[in-house]
């Protein structure tokens, strides 16, 4: 059995007031698209930050390709692509230069970075904006730029937080194809979303998060995902109130 791309064991990180993530176990296998769904404030972004070293857990551990996150070296991080919160896009640089710099930061040589950027511009249909400064891009095209920066180096672990935010329908399809293509090549993908229908189209597994915990999973092929989702969330809320 291949090593999961990422494993979280008993990960806990609590903020003042009780918000945060309260003991989460989760794994993303190679070739798997794992969706994380939940209401606002459920802890999805916090969980993703913990996976990427943006936060350190109070308890538990995160492993990427079997290596504890504290010990992941440059080669390990070169295989990670993410878009959590805002895109890595500098307003004074055009789309092409932004992508080249992002590729360099992901370990690509100067020459490879140029080729990667050109390829990503084509994949995310950014050709018209290649020479446009990022500060002049619409929100949707800025999001495409951020996604291109996260995916262009063909990472083996992809973490995307609400990646369809601000995307137009064409952008959503391009993103879906880009994710499916990379998963087919062996990448493990964790993606959070509010759009259950959208998630159901590509996810192999859907985990539901509520109040900082994983409370169950949904069948991507189920007929009424929305009803199943709210059943889980309401049952969890009721159980916690009763406890």
């Amino acid at each position, binding site marked *: 059995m291949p090593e999961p791309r990422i494993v979280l064991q008993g990960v806990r990180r609590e*903020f003042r007031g009780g918000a945060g993530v309260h003991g989460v176990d989760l794994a993303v296998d190679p070739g798997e698209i794992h969706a994380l769904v939940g209401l606002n404030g459920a802890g999805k972004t916090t969980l993703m*930050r913990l996976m*990427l*070293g*943006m*936060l*350190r857990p109070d308890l538990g551990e995160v492993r990427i390709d079997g290596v504890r996150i504290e010990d992941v*070296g*440059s*080669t390990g*991080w*070169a295989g*990670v692509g*993410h878009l*959590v*919160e*805002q*895109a*890595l*896009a*500098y*307003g*004074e*640089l055009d789309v092409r*230069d932004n992508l080249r*710099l*992002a590729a*360099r*930061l*992901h*370990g690509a040589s100067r020459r490879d970075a140029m080729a990667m950027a050109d390829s990503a511009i084509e994949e995310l249909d950014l050709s018209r904006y290649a020479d446009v400064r990022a500060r002049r891009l619409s929100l949707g095209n800025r999001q495409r730029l*951020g996604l291109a*920066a996260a995916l262009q180096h063909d990472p083996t672990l992809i*973490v995307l937080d609400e990646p369809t935010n601000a995307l137009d329908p064409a952008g959503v399809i391009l993103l879906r194809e880009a994710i499916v293509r990379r998963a087919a090549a062996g990448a493990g993908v964790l993606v959070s979303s509010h759009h259950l229908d959208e998630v159901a189209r590509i996810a192999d597994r859907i985990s539901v998060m509520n109040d900082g915990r994983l409370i169950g999973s949904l069948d991507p092929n189920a007929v009424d995902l929305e009803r199943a989702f709210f059943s889980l969330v309401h049952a969890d809320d009721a159980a916690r109130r009763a406890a």
Partner: protein
Amino acid sequence: MTDDAIRAGISVAIAVEARKVVSSRVFGWTTGILVVGLTALVLGLLAAADAGDARVLARLGPLADAHGWDLLIGVAAQILAAGGFGACGIFVAWIYGREFSDGTVAGLFALPVRRSSIAIGKLVVYLVWAAAVALVLTVLLGLLGLCAGLSETDPDGLGELLRIPLLTMLTALVAVPAGWIASLARSVLAGIAATIVLIIVAQVCAILGVGPWIPLVAPALWAIDPTAVPWPALTVVLVVPVVFGAATAFTWARMQLDR
């Protein structure tokens, strides 16, 4: 991570940061205002002093009795010690603090290039900028002196010109804490506020004549009166970028997106 990987990471960070800085408006405006502003102020003050303006002569203090290169460089040095410090502090605060105001800091996590390497890359780019500004200011003030005929009236004073690159670099070095404050507070404005406080402290101490051995004060004191600060005291200034550069790298290495 191996030493080679760390070195490679720093090299990439320098290249990336240099590209970002050179393309930014802040770079052009800060450099332009510092270079053009200082040159224009020097010209204006010297013209007013030459015309016998009593207020300007009073402000110049002991410099009012100076002549030739000594007067030109003395005036430039005094402006540079305060104005240059402000420009350097603002620039270094922006270099670090912009990642928070632009929302790009999250993208600097989970990379093969360490965040401490990125912090060092930013510092290197800042110091290279300061060296370039030092060179441009020296050339401009040299040309100003030559145009004023100082090569004939005061040929022996040309060596004074060397105070400009040295003072520019010393000023840039003591402004490094502003980058650390901007990183710690995650705010460009906090770095700028720190710069203003540091300017006031340094200028007050310089005017009172205290602290030639205090790194923060030594350049400003030296700008007013080079004989007041022994050479070893100037070398102590190097402690500032080393300590605060290391503190900045550590702050970036240990950073969490928890606020």
